[in-house]
């Protein structure tokens, strides 16, 4: 998408203008200087340069606006920035400040392909039907258990697998949180706190109205105790026990 040679500094300006226009509806040289923490005198030449390259429409003493070309570039820069920040935060669990700073410096250097691949990888992690692919979870568990070891160290991996095999670990996690729908007594009513299921089932439960603060009653159990039969919002439905376990309630 980026075809003309444009410096990092200029890209930063475009990004700033875009954000100013988006949030304040207008951008003036003064605002830009303030936002970037530079003198107004150094903004003006940059604006001229950008106008020459047809990224902005700039007349002296006028509001600055992005051209369609500029807006497209800006959107793409902002998108990269946000994506990188989220990647650092969500996947690598970095601190807010560090994520922001690294995103800022990396956004200019990512190639189109790198960007594309990273987007899809990130999408995959977030969109995988089972939620986070277990290797990400395992990586963080491993860091938590033995911070000095590399996530892919075989010893660590074995250790994690044995000690925190995914099923075991999930149960462990749940026990710590509020109790699950499956823990209710027959006839007991709770308020939904969170639906922890993933993928299709999660969407189905949400579509049926299993939203935070909705009251739900455990009506009865099947002969073997599974599935369970619940009542909510004037209708009744049955769920397997392991699905009910993924619905957290406050008793």
């Amino acid at each position: 998408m980026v075809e003309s040679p444009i410096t990092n500094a200029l890209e930063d300006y475009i990004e700033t203008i875009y954000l100013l226009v988006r949030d304040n509806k207008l951008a003036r040289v003064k605002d830009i200087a303030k936002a970037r923490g530079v003198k107004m005198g150094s903004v003006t030449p940059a604006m001229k340069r950008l106008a020459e390259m047809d990224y902005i429409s700039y007349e002296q003493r006028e509001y600055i606006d992005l051209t369609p070309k500029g807006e497209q570039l800006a959107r793409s820069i902002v998108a990269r920035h946000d994506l990188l920040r989220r990647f650092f935060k969500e996947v690598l669990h970095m601190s807010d400040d560090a994520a922001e700073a690294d995103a800022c410096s990396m956004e200019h250097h990512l190639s189109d392909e790198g960007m594309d691949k990273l987007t899809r990888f990130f999408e995959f992690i977030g969109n995988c039907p089972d939620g986070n692919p277990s290797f990400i979870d395992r990586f963080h568990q491993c860091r938590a258990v033995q911070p000095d070891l590399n996530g892919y160290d075989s010893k660590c991996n074995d250790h994690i697998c044995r000690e925190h095999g995914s099923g075991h670990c999930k149960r462990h996690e749940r026990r710590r949180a509020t109790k699950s729908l499956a823990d209710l007594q027959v006839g007991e009513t709770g308020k939904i706190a969170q639906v922890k299921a993933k993928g299709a089932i999660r969407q189905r439960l949400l579509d049926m109205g299993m939203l935070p603060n909705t009251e739900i009653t455990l009506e009865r159990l099947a002969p073997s105790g599974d599935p369970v039969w619940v009542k909510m919002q004037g209708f009744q439905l049955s769920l397997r026990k392991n699905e009910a376990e993924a619905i957290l309630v406050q008793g």
Partner: protein
Amino acid sequence: MSEPVIRVALAGNPNSGKTSLFNVLTGSRRNVGNYPGVTVEKKGGRFTHNGKDYEIADLPGTYSLTSYSPEERIARREILGGGFDVAVVVVDSTNLRRNLYLLTQVMLAEANIILCLNMSDEAQKSGQMLDLKQMEALLGLPIVETVGNRGIGVDVLKDTIENALANPAKGERLVLGERLDLVVDQLAEMIVDDGEGARPPRWLAVKLLENDSLSKQWIRKRLPEISEDLIITAQNRAFEIEEETALDISTYIADRHYGYVNGLLKEVVLQEAREDSRRLSDQIDAIVCNRFFGPFFFMLSMYMLFYLTFSVGDYPMGWIEAGFEWLGGLVSGFWPEGSDSPLRSLIVDGIIGGVGGVIVFLPNIALLFLGLAFLEDSGYMARAAFLVDRVMHKFGLHGKSFIPMMTGFGCTIPGIMATRTLENERDRLTTMMVLPLMSCGARLPIWMLLIPAFFPEHWRAPMLFFIYIFGIVLAAILAKVLRITVLRGEETPFVMELPPYRMPTFKAMMSKMGERSWLYIRKAGTIILAISIVLWAISSYPKLDQSPIDAKIASGKIQVIDQQLPENLSEQERDAALEQIIGKAKESAAKGVEVLTVNEVEQRKLTEDLDYSVAGRIGSFLEPVLSPMGFDVRISTALLGAFAAKEVFVAQMGIVFSLGEVDEESETLRDKLAKAYNPAVALSLMIFLLVATPCMATVAVTKRESGSWKWAMLQLCGLTVLAWIISTIVYQVGVLFL
């Protein structure tokens, strides 16, 4: 009337009464059940109103328009595809909140909407009162109250549909809250697409926020220049919302939709339904689905179903049988006695024998369908799925697989179609693959013919039971094997609504039974008629000019005993006398001369004729494969017919045993079978017919439903090979003991 047809879509939650409404609108008979997922594919019908033609489609029941289940994808494609002039959103008035959630989805899709409050009588009975004027004003949509199963409000609905063409109402009043609306508008602004089949921008914006894969695919294809920016921007906005609200985006969006519905209901519900409106239904469940008594009631209901089918069905079956016997006799009477007319043979043996043998089972089939209709319409089927899910789950199946499998006892075809209610592809395929093992109605005639022929009275009922159970157990094992081999994968969830019990209307049950039975009759009148004629022809032609046995008699190599025995002898005395005569004849006969009775000669002749015919030649060709199971040429030819339709097996056995009339009650056919084969053959044959080669129609439907020949062929070949192995073992072991 050259005006274009007006296309109407019916959308709604499962169990919202869409299908009843569809039936009333079109006057057609469709399956209505009181369990989720009766409409497994979009079905169309037509009606005319005020001189205009309408085409109406009953979309599958869905809770939403996501892209997770095949049904939802169908409904979504239809609504978004813009193939409709009007979308009627049918909601269950007794469960407005959840039903209106779907309405908000359709509003987002910018269809031209009419809201239909169905089951309004039940809602009123429960004490619920609505301010419809206010509701229309707030939604900006026309509203019609209906009672689908009694046809109330249908004319008003038709008028409203007509009206909606001139005054489209697209539900622009959907408000998702300031926060979300802002983001959605921002994203929607970026989406500019005026091409054919464009998606509503606000819909796309929401779907992109939800990270919906189909929408992403669509936008990447349609708007490649902006797609990546759009997708990333949407995800970033979603992330911001998540950070601000501490809810994940899909919860937040669902919550906003429900927020809109709740706000609406607060304004329009003048009086809530009484708390106890479902009390009776709950009281029944407290007993029927009780943790301890539940299984008992389940067994009882299954027992009643089969009792109804087999015991009650016996009476009308006798009448039909007698009718066909009489008809066969009547037609035979047109020819002089002993005449060898091919036409007589065609009509009496081929047509009356073949088709009659199948129609005889109509009462059983009709009763089975009636029983299934009652279980479906009353709402018990969903409870049964709840009760058996655990067991089904153990074998890699799903509680919802239970419904298609029950249907499979009637006929495999609707069973396979009903697997569409299973959201997960692997569950669907597993269920489809093992469904032919549910002994279908078409196999009933076979059991009715073979069991009494080979098993003593007190073993007959257990044998029949054994066959059904054998199929079920084998299906369970096979399902498990499939799930740990080719269909391995994640477990799938079991989320199923349990609708309140409803008294099935007589009309609905009758029409359902009638529709399904009619399909059976039609099959008998078309496919089976045709196959009977073909089978009759290939088993009768080419004919021998002179049978070898006649030549042998003529040349003196065979001596025929044709001595009349006194009429007044008992059967035992007769046999003894005959034996004596044969013994004497043998002693006096020259060396190398065979001594046969007239009856034996007849039997030989028939065998020779059959061997010479096309069917016999195919049978002999297959014999090396089939003989390890104990099957001879006659059975082989009948198995050919059974592949076309299972019922044909009975007809063909009758034809090859050359009987005037073919029906299972005919003692002569059973006697002949009992004399010709030993029980080991019978057992091996029954197992083979149960397991092997699902009929052609099943293979075709499996191909269509699974979307590939691969699965259809796996089903066909896998089951046949399995049947061969089991039957061979049964026969080989059986012969040792019998």
